[in-house]
């Protein structure tokens, strides 16, 4: 279970998070929605420890993440970055097996390669992709490789940062379905941030609406379309009129 209590974060005079409270149960897929620049990525990076929050508490399975051993903590996580964030100096299979080639999860090279190829297969890529470099792949293939890397070490928690950004609708649908399948199959806790409503409907068990640095609404995805919350209604319907300013 991931729990955020009163998380604040500012960058200079700009207050991005103003007291985020959120709970994600184990095995649950939580999708955080909200407009661009509302602090979705900052929330995610605070949980991972990539950004230190100014105030508040973030806990994983009841343990404050700030007090946990970093390596042991991060070993429980996998993350798919918005742009893939693949290491362009190494071939695809080494990207996927990065964690298995060094550190506490290190395995023999041949075994790591086998696992990488298996994970590539799981995300719909053939073994011949393994020896290509990221620059030789299309955007959709890079996302799949990023997904394979995120699940390579069988993490307990997987984060997805804008998983369908930059993809055509068909490929976006394929990635959404893959994410849902993998999360269910692995029984992992998932936290996704997106403003793509098709992703929300495909991936989410629960949805949280982040706006102006706080969670305005959260609930099951089935209630998202019927909630009277004006922020969610405006965001889901995608109209300019409402409490969310169209120009931020």
């Amino acid at each position, binding site marked *: 279970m991931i729990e955020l209590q009163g998380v604040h974060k500012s960058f200079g005079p700009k207050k991005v998070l103003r007291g985020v409270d959120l709970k994600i149960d184990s095995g649950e897929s939580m999708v955080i929605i909200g407009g661009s620049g509302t602090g979705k990525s900052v929330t995610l*990076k605070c949980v*991972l420890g990539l950004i230190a929050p100014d105030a508040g508490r973030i806990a994983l399975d009841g343990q404050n993440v700030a007090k946990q051993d970093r390596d042991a903590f991060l070993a429980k996580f996998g*993350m798919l*970055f918005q742009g893939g964030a693949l290491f362009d100096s190494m071939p695809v299979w080494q990207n996927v097996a990065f964690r298995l080639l060094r550190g506490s*999860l290190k395995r023999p090279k041949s075994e790591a390669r086998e696992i990488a190829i298996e994970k590539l297969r799981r995300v719909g890529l053939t073994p011949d992709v393994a020896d290509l470099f990221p620059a030789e792949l299309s955007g959709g293939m890079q996302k799949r490789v990023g997904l394979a890397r995120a699940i390579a070490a069988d993490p307990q928690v997987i984060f997805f940062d804008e998983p369908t950004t930059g993809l055509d609708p068909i490929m976006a649908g394929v990635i959404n379905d893959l994410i849902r399948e993998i999360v269910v199959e692995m029984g992992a806790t998932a936290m996704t941030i997106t403003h793509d409503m098709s992703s929300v409907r495909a991936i989410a068990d629960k949805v949280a609406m982040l706006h102006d640095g706080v969670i305005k609404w959260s609930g099951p995805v089935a209630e998202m379309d019927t909630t009277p919350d004006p922020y969610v209604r405006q965001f889901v319907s995608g109209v300019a009129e409402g409490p969310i300013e169209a120009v931020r």
Partner: protein
Amino acid sequence: MISASLAGLGRASLGLIAGVGRAVIFAAQTLVALIRPPFYLKEFLQALLTIGYFSLPVVGLTALFTGAALALQIYAGGARFSAEQVVPSIVAIGMTRELGPVLGGLMVAARVASSIAAEIGTMKVTEQIDALVTLSTDPMRYLTVPRVLAATLAVPVLVGVGDAIGIFGGYLVGVTRLGFNPANYLQNTVDFLEFWDVGSGLVKGAVFGFLVALVGCYYGMNSGRGAQGVGRATKSAVVTASVMILASNYILTEAFFTS
């Protein structure tokens, strides 16, 4: 008006002090990481190849032409007081003590500091640095330490090779253009060259290599967003590394040769 100027001056001073502080902390963190595992051997060897081996042509050519020009200049200058015979020894001392390490360091700064800053800066803006962290890998140990260690070890070797090529450049000009006897030229070079002439240049090379890689990594890790941010980081890395080489060269020369 005056208070606004003072405020601006104060802001600039504080910014400068904060920048120096950040750089010093970065250097201290690098030194600590140099002696604490994990160590990434593959990344170190890759950096050694990129920084050392692939810099050989540019350092060698620079040294060759510098040694050749130096021989001509010393011959022309020495002719004013009938001291043409000092060409071999002055070329050797000039190359090993000053021109070899300084020009070699500057060429490495242009080639290596820029490429390190651009590479790491691009990694930062494309979230590859964040990805490293989520994969339980410390960017300082994985990216900075191998490059700094490789440059510290490789640049003295480059300087040594550059010294030899520079002296050879002077020899070629001395023998073919200035009428020196080949055997006498070499004998003069060997007779007047002392161990510390070469040794001091190699020590300078190690210091310059450390500074070049450190500055490249620092600006890469602190790169701004987008293409403009990476471009600015690259430019700043080359300028800062070059100035630091020249400044530290003066300090080292004071320390080595004025006591």
